[in-house]
């Protein structure tokens, strides 16, 4: 792989806290190596700002290998930047060329208030899980793991949904700021398994109710969420969710 250096212009959203208004600041960064990750490029800028006595850009990040779901930057109008099935931390600078201007914003959604700069509050996701995104089994209650066989196909599909990292890119990409892809992934993960069957009806009803309460928008099935999902969760999970919800309404006693 050929490596090269580049000079870039960054326009970054700066916001002191939830209560104050934000604005774009422009920064020039030079000698950026194509081998750097996007966050390492921000690190370099932050080191410069810090040694100048200025506050560095605040952003969420942790594992830097695409699995913890912390990083969340809206880059040139697209969550996590230009690469398919990718997180911000795994985006590398060879995606850009010398002279490029890059606009970096936080996730935009009412249910995700900005905490500072590029950092948002995604605790609404935790509350949606609290509403029913689990199987109620206390420690020690389990039978032997091989006592219940699970069709491989279903187990694989359940896993494909369980891969969701709760980054929130689906919400950020959606014009309605809907959390349907996130929630449908959790519902699919659990309802595809026999272990999840007993709570199938209450789970979907309660989780949908919580999602509405948090102020996420409705789904109009445009598919923006699917196209930016780092873990390639399919929009068919939302279709499955509709089925689950409908069937819960028809069969539930509550």
């Amino acid at each position, binding site marked *: 792989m050929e490596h090269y250096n580049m000079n870039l212009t960054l326009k970054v959203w700066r916001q002191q806290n939830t209560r104050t208004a934000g604005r774009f600041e422009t920064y020039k960064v030079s000698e950026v190596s194509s081998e750097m990750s996007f966050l390492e490029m921000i690190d370099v800028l932050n080191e410069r700002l810090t040694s100048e006595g200025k506050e560095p850009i605040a952003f969420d990040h942790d594992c830097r290998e695409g699995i913890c779901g912390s990083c969340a930057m809206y880059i040139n109008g697209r969550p996590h930047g230009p690469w398919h099935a990718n997180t911000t931390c795994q985006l590398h600078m060879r995606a850009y060329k010398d002279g490029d201007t890059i606009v970096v914003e936080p996730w935009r959604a009412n249910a995700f208030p900005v905490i500072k700069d590029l950092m948002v509050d995604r605790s609404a996701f935790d509350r949606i899980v609290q509403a029913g995104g689990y199987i109620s089994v206390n420690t020690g209650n*389990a039978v032997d793991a091989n006592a219940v066989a699970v069709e491989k196909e279903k187990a694989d599909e359940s896993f494909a949904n369980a891969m969701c990292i709760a980054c929130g890119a689906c919400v950020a990409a959606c014009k309605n700021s809907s959390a349907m892809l996130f929630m449908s992934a959790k519902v699919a993960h659990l309802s595809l398994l026999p272990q999840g069957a007993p709570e199938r009806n209450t789970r979907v009803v309660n989780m949908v109710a919580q999602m509405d309460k948090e102020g996420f928008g409705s789904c109009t099935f445009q598919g923006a969420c699917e196209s930016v999902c780092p873990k390639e969760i399919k929009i068919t999970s939302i279709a499955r969710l509709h089925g689950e919800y409908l069937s819960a309404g028809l069969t539930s006693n509550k």
Partner: protein
Amino acid sequence: MLNSKIPPGALENKWNDYKGHVKLVNPSNKRNIEIIIVGTGLAGASAASSLGELGYKVKAFCFQDSPRRAHSIAAQGGINAAKNYQNDGDSVFRLFYDTVKGGDYRAREANVHRLAEVSVSIIDQCVAQGVPFAREYGGLLSNRSFGGTQVQRTFYAAGQTGQQLLIGAYQSLERQVALGNVEMYARHEMLDIVKIDGKARGIIARNLVTGKLERHFGHAVLLCSGGYGNVFYLSTNALGSNVTASWKAHKQGALFGNPCFTQIHPTCIPVSGDHQSKLTLMSESLRNDGRIWVPLKPNDTRKAADIPEDERDYYLERRYPAFGNLVPRDVASRAAKERCDAGYGVGNSKQAVYLDFASSIQRYGQAEVSKRGLSNIDHAGVMALGEEVVKEKYGNLFDMYQKITGENPYETAMRIYPAVHYTMGGLWVDYELMTTVPGLYALGEANFSDHGANRLGASALMQGLADGYFVIPYTVGNYLADQLAVKSIPVDHPAFLQAEKEVSDRINRLMSIQGKQTAESFHKRLGKIMWNKCGMARSEEGLKEAIEEIRALKKEFWSDLRIPGIVEEMNPELDKANRVADFIELGELMCIDALDRNESCGGHFREESQTEEGEAKRDDQDFAYVSAWEFKGEHNWELHKEPLEFEVAKPSQRSYK
């Protein structure tokens, strides 16, 4: 001073006997008892949910924005359990034995046996929670092999086993939050332990959003705050992973066990430049199918694919025919370093070896051809079929490699090099997981207890969940049963106010230095000292130099650090500086420990102690003990030794040949 509280009796009966006689807390009393849990990875989340289910009032803290993001999530390959579903000769005893041997006879037998016993329940529990482990077509669970073993006992979910296990534990935790049994404090960092009458009774935490300090009471405090690999700056740990919680406990009287025992993982993506912020692991499971090699000729600049088979050196298969590419991590790492140091390394930096899938892709491709009854398939067709199989097994890892390096690992051999991955050392705990401070516990990677001098692959997840789901619910009760008379202590108690003031004073001291250098730059320099002198090979001379360099660095840190911003608001630079300050002190202790241990064992390789063939030479005569260090004051520690007695797994020189 050190009482490991190992129950009497035969090894295989100890845990059962303990459980049968341990003190219990009745349900109505549990409601009045508060427990603080710091960290929400596998150990913390499983402990929080299990203790919440039992009826204790739990407060859980994590510095991430959600408990689901703790670094356990990044564990890739799998989790061991002695299920023997493969009928290949596995048993609780074998898992116990492999773990003690793999740890190079520096772990406690009783703890390891308990770990092997509860391993089977972990898999049951996780499946019941809906963890979607890999399955066979018959619907039953699938297993694979990991290093240092000759059975298939590793359960997995593609290359995301840690993620799936953590989500299982996280969901159980959130269920307890919904039920009101657990109160969750995300974006909070513990900055000190509060002790009253010698017992741990609470913590001081910083709300990372507002910058305000908070005081929290607990009848017991559980540290589940992970390992300290980031002392090396570059490691496979998440950037936020830190030693601060453990270090504060250490300074409050908890002894630190085997601090120098660090795991250097053999298969990581090599460093590409000075900008590098972290290293990425390529799961050990890749060694099931990938073959590791370097060119036979030194300084060979040809591309991997252009080097013919007879000009390649599959050095692990050559040196260790019995285990081949599946030797334990410490052995594989040292072998890679040996080849690179001798001039056989590959890539631009020459600090890398190849991990090659070509022969597996071909083998799987041919198997598919016969399975599907295909004929007239050319080589490219066979390889395409083989690629599909490899993609299903390791797809996410291959994708990650391609994103980072820009190279396609299905077509070109991957370049890998060892990197810091895990720390076997940690807070010293007894059989009940209690530190030397009464009421203060350490679980998971934060303690030192189960992996000796080298952890086997797929055992970290096992230990984290064993401690949280199946050990602490029993052992913490044994302590709390004697604490029923203690009412919740109000947080305006003088001990709380004093602890808060000390934390606040330290923060103000850091902020007021107003020097020129960033916390990050100090961290990088510390990492270089540690990697060069307390890394894969250690010598008396190097360690002595390192200690002096670290002391000088500490002085410089406290006189020339620069933190922008203010205290009472979000300030990530301040948080980082707090952590780096602790890493610097820890680094000194690690070097002191490595210097004391003049033997090679597991991940700790002293150049002075090796065989003629360059293998690690253990010294059971003089070093069959756990080093437990007591903090006495700046640059001053006292060593306590816990002798290790092996009644069942008799120490032998480890051989994987």
